Every structure is written in structure tokens, then in C-alpha cells.
């Protein structure tokens, strides 16, 4: 299923270790997507070389969880341990949000609502170049507050970009509270379906289900696809799960030790 050494538990250990070393936040978001990112880089993406022009493209639309992507890139061997250990240090390429100069990062992101349009362009480019390559974008659910997401959704449906997959990390939380209380997205799956997309609701912490779903999509014809990946913010570290403060805060030494034990690592 998930292969190539990209294991979600490994991603979580790297996320915690690097967040602690760099003393930065966004830990909850990175944990939320750890399974999705593991499946993307461990199984779904057809990329033998991150510089191959005909590789599948991936857009980390929710750029603030890029640390999970860096973890996967290091597990794939595209980002060195030295680069990874430079995360958020002065002069490093690896910041909180991803940059295109990093091998395996196809597009720079960081401003929500801009990733899906670029993925749509990547998918359209594949079609124009008669390639079978696909484009994947990982969005946050609150990112769907952005009008530009829906501009891209409408365009992709109009052009039946069957080689495009949006994955929405539906953890139900945003920066200042729950999505239900701020901008209620429900029924999120129905909204995407109403715009003409092929919608699959899936457990975002079930690698097998994520893989099976991605394998079952028709990338040759028909509408674009969206996975509403139901997730838990902070997944895998009990005291972080569903806790808003882990959108922001770095860990104390005690919290780090406790978190690492939960993900099977050595603090």
C-alpha cells in the first residue's frame, strides 16, 4: 500500500522533532495530513525524478503544513537530512511554507486559495501535452472559504479535468475556531458535487482507504475528483487532537517528550 518508506508514523516523528528543534507551530495541521501526505509521496505520485518534466504534480495548497511534506521528501531521499535539519533556520530553503526551489516541491504556496488554481493549470498542461500525468492538490477545509477555490472548481469541472485530484483535509478546524462556527462548510461533499466534481468521502487517517480510493479514480475521462478526507487536527498525539492552540504553539520539553512517546519515537 504505502511504500517507498513513507510511513505516516515516520512523518509524525519528523514533524515533532523538527518543530521542536525550530521552536515553531503549525504542528496540529502537519499531523492532520500525515496519512494523506504519506499516501501521496509513498504511493500515489508517479515521480521517479523530481525534475522529470512529465512527473505527476503535487500542490501543497495548505502550505502551512509543509513540514509534513518535507518529512515525506526526506523519506523519499529528495531532501537531505542536512536540509531537513535546517528547517526554519536562518538562510534555509525550508521555511514554514514550501518553496519551489526544494526538490519535490512543484509550486510555492503559503497564501490560501492559490494552490488549486495552479493545480488546475498543471492538469490542463498535462492534457495539452497529451500526457497521462496527473495533478494533486491538498487543501485545508477552511481554505474553501476562499472564493478563488470555487473559481478553480468551476473551471476544472467545465473542462472535465479528470487528471486532477483535490484532497481536502477536513479536520473541521481553522485558525480561530471550528469551521462550523466560523464559516460553516457543511455539506462540503454536496457542495463539490453540485459543482460537478466526482466526490469521494474517505477516512483521512486510513492509508488503505486513501490508496484504494485514489486507485479507483478515472483519470482518463470524466469530471475532476475530490477526496473529502475526514481527519482529526493533531492526529496521533492525544493532547494535541482537536486542540486549537496547536495551530500556533511550539512544544515545551515535557510536551515534546510525551508527544514523541505517543508516536513511537525517542524524544
Amino acid at each position, binding site marked *: 500500500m504505502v511504500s517507498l518508506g513513507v510511513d505516516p508514523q515516520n512523518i509524525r516523528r519528523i514533524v515533532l522533532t523538527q518543530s521542536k528543534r525550530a521552536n515553531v507551530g503549525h504542528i496540529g495541521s502537519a499531523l492532520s495530513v500525515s496519512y494523506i501526505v504519506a499516501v501521496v509521496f509513498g504511493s500515489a505520485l508517479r515521480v521517479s525524478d523530481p525534475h522529470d*518534466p512529465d512527473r505527476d504534480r503535487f500542490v501543497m495548497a495548505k502550505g502551512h503544513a509543509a513540514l509534513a511534506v518535507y518529512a515525506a521528501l526526506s523519506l523519499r531521499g529528495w531532501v537531505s537530512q542536512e536540509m531537513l535539519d535546517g528547517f526554519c533556520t536562518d538562510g534555509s530553503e525550508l521555511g514554514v511554507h514550501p518553496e*519551489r526551489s526544494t526538490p519535490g516541491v512543484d509550486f*510555492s504556496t503559503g497564501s490560501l486559495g492559490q494552490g488549486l*488554481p*495552479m493545480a488546475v493549470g498543471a492538469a490542463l*498542461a498535462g492534457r495539452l501535452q497529451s500526457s497521462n500525468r496527473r495533478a494533486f492538490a491538498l487543501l485545508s477545509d477552511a481554505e474553501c472559504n476562499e*472564493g478563488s477555490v470555487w*473559481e478553480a472548481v468551476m*473551471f476544472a469541472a467545465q473542462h472535465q479535468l479528470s487528471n486532477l485530484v483535490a484532497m481536502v483535509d477536513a479536520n473541521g478546524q481553522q485558525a480561530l475556531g471550528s469551521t462550523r462556527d466560523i464559516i460553516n462548510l457543511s455539506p462540503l461533499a454536496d457542495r463539490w458535487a453540485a459543482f460537478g466534481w466526482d466526490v469521494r468521502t474517505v477516512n483521512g487517517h486510513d492509508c488503505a482507504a486513501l490508496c484504494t480510493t485514489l486507485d479507483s479514480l478515472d483519470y482518463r475521462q470524466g469530471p475532476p475528483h475530490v477526496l473529502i478526507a475526514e481527519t482529526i487536527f493533531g492526529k496521533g498525539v492525544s493532547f494535541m487532537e482537536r486542540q486549537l492552540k496547536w495551530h500556533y504553539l511550539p512544544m515545551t520539553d515535557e510536551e515534546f517528550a510525551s508527544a514523541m512517546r505517543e508516536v513511537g519515537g525517542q524524544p
Partner: protein
Amino acid sequence: MRTAFVTNLVELAEQDPRILLLTGDLGFMAVEPFTDRFPDRFFNVGVAEQNMVGVATGLAEAGFIPFVYSIAPFATLRPYEFIRNGPVHQRLPVRIVGIGGGFEYGTNGPSHFALEDVAVMRPLPGLSVITPADPAQAAAALRATWDLPGPVYYRLGKNDSRVVPGLDGRYDLDRGQVVREGSDVLIIAMGAAAYEAMIGADLLAHNGLQATVAVISTMSPPPLAYISALLHQFRLAATVEAHYRVGGLGSLVSEVVAEQAIPCRIIRCGVGALHSELVGSEQFLARAHGISGDGIAAAILRVTQPLAAT
């Protein structure tokens, strides 16, 4: 000049399959030569300029040269952050085509004016900002810049008939063009404002003042050496632009004067406070805001003949 631009774009697209055209549902009676010839390389993305720039960014990453087309404020201001984080930050060859600099959409009102587009595009590193003066120069500018490795903003007039006398289709990326020579005062015009600048120069000649008129149609990267060399020849220069007085050519020339301590006084002819209650023809609005030929001449005469002007 949009007709000349599209005609030349079609010719370039014949030679280079990387060229694509995207529009935000605008360009009736303008983009048809491209859409007729290359229906598979044309995309009307609908009224969605942010997505248009985002899609173009994705296309450019894959090796295409996408031109995105809309009325200037909708091409620049609405998707500005997408331009900044997309083709500019990621150094991708997207071409932003904004139609109607200044007051060209005068009767449509302030929503359609482009008076700050150059000011906001000019600081973006690596983005070439091209402001052609007339149709022949628009064609030459396109042919000189269409395959630059970085992104480009083209500010194009929709007027296809107005020609700047003496320009004769000249365009250089790294310099301006002199279209009239005189030794008393320098008038530097941004792109299409050269037309009114030439009228102003004629009026000055009737008052015994001979003006050199230079056209600057590359606002970024700024032709600093060219501007500096011109300014060194004069004690008085007026900048003219269909744009707010802040952030465009007047600001650029003032930066050159200040940084190089050039002994030349600058008069900035541009739009100050917008009379936002006014709509009307481009000519009417230019006059109302002091950027018509007579306004330019009057601004210069107020300095050279302060007693006569009062």
C-alpha cells in the same frame, strides 16, 4: 494597439506552440484572430481573474507561455497577490495583458480606470512592465519580449488608430525613444501619454519654448542610464503619464534625479486626486486631470513664465 498586439501574437503562436491565450471573458472584437486560428490554445476562464492567473502559473511551470487578457485593473489589481506569489515569486513566464491604461474606459467610470497599475507592478522583482505608446510600438515590444524567461506585464491601449508621430515602431527594452528634439525643456512620457505630450510640445513651440519629447515604454526594468543621460541635458523636465502621479514615471524619474543628484527640476504631470464623480471620454478626463496636451503645456509654462501665467 490591442489589434496590432493580437495580430502579432497570432504570428508568434504560429511559430511557437508554447503560446496560449487566456481571457477573463473579455476581448470581443479583439481576440478573435487568435481564437479562430488556435481554438485549442485559447481558454475563456470566465469572470475569474484570480483563477486565470493561477491556472497560467500552472501552465507556465509545465513549459507554456500563457498570455492572460483582461481590462487593465481586472488584469492587475484583482489578481495582484496571485501575480506576486505565482509568476513573479516562482519566476515563470506568464504574460499579463491589461487593456486600457489611464482613462481609456472613461465612460465606464472609475472601476475601469487604470491609474495605479504601473505603481503596483513596478516593484515586483523580475517582472518586466511594458507600456507601449502606439500600435506599431506595441507590435515591436511584443516581438522583443514575448519569450523573456520571466513574467511580463503589458499595458495596452484599446485605441488602434492613435499614432505617436516620429516613433515609427521603434522599441528597445533597455532605453526610451526620442520623438521630438528641442533644447529648452524635456518632456518624458510613459507610453501612450506621448501622444498628448507631443500636442503639449506643439503648444510650447507657439510660446517660443522648444521641447524634446522622449517616450519611456519599459517601466521595469527601468532604463536608468537612458533617463539619466537625458536629464543631464536639461534644467527642467516634465513627466507625463495617464496614471496617478505617485508610483509611475514621475516617481521613477524623480528617483533617478535624487539618487544621481542631477540638476534638473521635475514637473510631474499625472493624475492627482481623482475627480471620481466624473465620467466622460478619455480626452475629457485627461483634460480634467491636467494630462492633456494643453494641461501639460500650461504646467510647464507656469514654471518657465510664472508671471505671464498668473
